């Protein structure tokens, strides 16, 4: 059974992003797309995550990225997904002081131990989302 799609407005997308903590960031590195899961937190409408030196996520500093979060139920086949397109930029002491202060106070918690000195912030350009709904409840449920 095929569901219906509802487009989500930006405000709803940001609200949904704030309810989760694992997303997937896609970058293009020398023409090759790369997608990895990261844990993240939100700074208003911006996505913030930590990364280590020398990762492929280096391609994510000062470049266009796509960031995706979803919550899809395989039983009901309902759920939502949100995609942020924007410019990823490492937060450094040379950034605007209000951003540095805010991001430091957020301190996106690295779940794993190890040195993750780089904090990357995605300034959103577009934020889009979709929700898939079943047209009718399944009669067997």
């Amino acid at each position, binding site marked *: 059974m095929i569901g219906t799609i509802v487009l989500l407005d930006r405000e709803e997308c940001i609200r949904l992003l704030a309810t989760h903590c694992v997303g997937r960031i*896609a970058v293009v590195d020398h*023409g090759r797309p790369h997608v990895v899961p990261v*844990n993240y937190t939100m700074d208003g409408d911006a996505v913030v995550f930590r990364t280590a030196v020398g990762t492929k996520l280096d391609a994510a500093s000062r470049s266009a990225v796509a960031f995706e979060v979803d919550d899809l139920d395989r039983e009901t086949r309902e759920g939502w997904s949100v995609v942020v397109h924007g410019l990823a930029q490492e937060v450094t002491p040379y950034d605007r002081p209000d951003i540095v202060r805010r991001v430091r106070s957020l301190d996106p918690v690295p779940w794993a131990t190890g040195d993750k000195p780089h904090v990357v912030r995605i300034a959103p350009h577009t934020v889009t989302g979709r929700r898939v709904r079943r047209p009718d409840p399944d009669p067997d449920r």
Partner: protein
Amino acid sequence: MTPVTREALLEELAVDECWALLATHMVGRLAVATLDGCPVVVPMNYVVSGNGIVFRTDDGTKLRAIGNGRASFEVDAVDPHRGTGWSVLVRGDVYEATSWELAGVTLDAWAPGPKRLWLRLAAREVTGRRLDVAGFEPDERGYL
């Protein structure tokens, strides 16, 4: 600060285990590059077929904008409360599937739309990680 060794936290999965995990799931995220080199990522329901992944999509989606055919596909199952789970990455080339490649393949679309286009991602590289207690983060290779 002495970092805890990642070996204690992250177990690299064998290729056959990656394929077995891929077969247990139905939704992943496909990342491609547009012609102008921008990344696009979309959740897709999928089915494993041979050494590849098959998707259905509409003609009009952004995936039509696939630049060089390179693609990266990610599937994960993470419990954020316990900090456990796994992720698998499939990298390769995505192209419109031929009818013989689709023989015996069934894939229901979750979302509406004509879904006229059948895509297949031929795997060049399949890697995966299982994470233990204490959390997860991309390692130096950039994934869990």
